[in-house]
């Protein structure tokens, strides 16, 4: 925006910008807490974030939510699902960009698959794949592979045509072009895709666990839904968002490691 040229941003704005995410989320929780208290909303209708956190951190007299086991289970499924999406997504994109024929055949099928709501497909998946961690990982993969593929393909395709012509003139093989030009060029898009995947994968894992699982944060939500026990529900959702954010952060760190040149220009 225009302000960056002439005005020096004051210290408060700098501080806010640095911790923008955390501050605004904390503000949101504050507003939520106050709204529930001021309007005397019953706990079955909507609980306060403090109540959710209490159920998360302190042992409750009425139920033991086994947070450690459930969080570990969801984390495990999420990590594997995310890795499967990353690896599978990149591999699929490479195949689709390498061969236009395969792309013409497979892409519409992917668009078709992506148009179906995951909640609707999951019961079928349980009948076919059975019940357990692997099904949840597959659901996570299904939920997040499409944006990953789209982004990576866009990256692999978005090369400067002049550069391609030059390299062609120098008689580069298709493989060399791929390895040395397309792939490095696609890195920003791949990381953009990974950032989107980080939230979608955890969403897929939760949906899988909601529908049929006996462990994990989704299962805690399903169990609490029956009794309108909102605090553990929201505690699980908060935990789940934290997982997504953590993975997003990891991807950002990886991005800095893999593409150090991108961040030099940032200091304007």
């Amino acid at each position, binding site marked *: 925006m225009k302000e960056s040229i002439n005005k020096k941003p004051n210290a408060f704005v700098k501080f806010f910008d640095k911790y923008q995410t955390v501050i605004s989320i904390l503000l949101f929780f504050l507003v939520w807490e106050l709204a529930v208290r001021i309007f005397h909303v019953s706990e079955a209708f909507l609980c306060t974030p403090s109540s959710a956190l209490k159920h998360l951190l302190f042992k409750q007299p009425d139920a033991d939510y086994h947070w450690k086991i459930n969080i570990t289970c969801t984390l495990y499924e999420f990590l594997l699902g995310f890795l499967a999406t990353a690896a599978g997504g990149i591999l699929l994109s490479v195949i689709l960009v390498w061969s236009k024929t395969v792309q*013409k055949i497979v892409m519409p099928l992917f668009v078709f698959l992506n148009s179906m709501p995951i*909640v*609707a497909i999951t019961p079928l998946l349980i009948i076919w794949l059975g019940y357990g961690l692997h099904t949840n990982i597959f659901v996570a993969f299904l939920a997040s592979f*499409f944006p990953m593929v789209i982004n990576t393909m866009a990256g692999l*395709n978005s090369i400067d045509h002049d550069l391609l012509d030059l390299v062609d003139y120098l008689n580069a093989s298709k493989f060399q072009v791929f390895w040395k030009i397309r792939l490095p060029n696609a890195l920003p898009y791949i990381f953009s895709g990974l950032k989107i995947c980080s939230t979608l994968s955890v969403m897929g894992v939760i949906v899988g666990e909601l529908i049929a699982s006996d462990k994990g944060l989704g299962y805690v939500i399903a169990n609490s839904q029956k009794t309108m026990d909102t605090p553990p529900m929201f505690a699980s959702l908060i935990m789940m968002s934290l997982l997504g954010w953590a993975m997003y952060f990891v991807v950002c760190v990886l991005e800095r490691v893999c593409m150090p040149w991108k961040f030099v220009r940032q200091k304007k």
Partner: protein
Amino acid sequence: MINENKFLKKVRIFFSKYGLTLLAVVVLIVIWQLAVDLLHIKKYVLPSPKLVFESLFGPKAYENHWWKHIGTTVTEVLGSFILTIVLGVLLAVFISWNKWLNRLLMPVIVLFNSIPKIALAPLFLLWFGYGVWPNIWISFMVAFFPVVINTATGLMSVDDDLLDLVNYLDASKAQVFMKIRIPNSLPYVFSAVKMSITMCIVGSIVGEFVASKSGIGFLLRDAQARIDMPTMFACLLVLAVLGMVCFGLLSLCEHLILPWKSNRLEVEA
């Protein structure tokens, strides 16, 4: 004569673009039917294409009241689509205009986006009730957040050099917005619009799963209860076809309004 050639040319172009895909689909259906017949796969594990077709168009198809259910779902999708586009794009514009709004609201919107709305199903029933209008609101809640995020990101990612140039020319903030940002971001808006129709379909199904008296989601659950796999498959097929038809219609609109746009910009899905 010339018109005939033009028509044939269009047909040829269509087939060269989609011919291979159509062939692949046909081959897939044939393999599917053969697999079910030869491997004696049970009806409730994988129904054959023939059974799915019968469930949609066969003599007993009227029992499923397809048109009533499709009608309900389409109504919900259209309703939530309009709401999402109007409110979503509006909010995205505000967020990209005002840096403070961006700082305060974006993280919260991203937070809401990462929560699967089906997890809040019983609360939705409590808060919104059931019926077509509540389902429109539930579907709106599902589609709203990704649309805001994508549109705002697009609106904010205008070429910096272009902005510098215009600043050098002493353009006012409003001028910058009207003459640079909006035309430049129309492609992103259209991308978000196309994405939102898919999300609206997903959202209306989520709403129908929560509580409903009709709709494709209602029929899906009903079929699941009767272990009627052909109908379940048929429902998914209808949903996917609905999604693709809407997507295609919107792509057509985009092509008419933004003929200069290249496909390169379809980055975020």
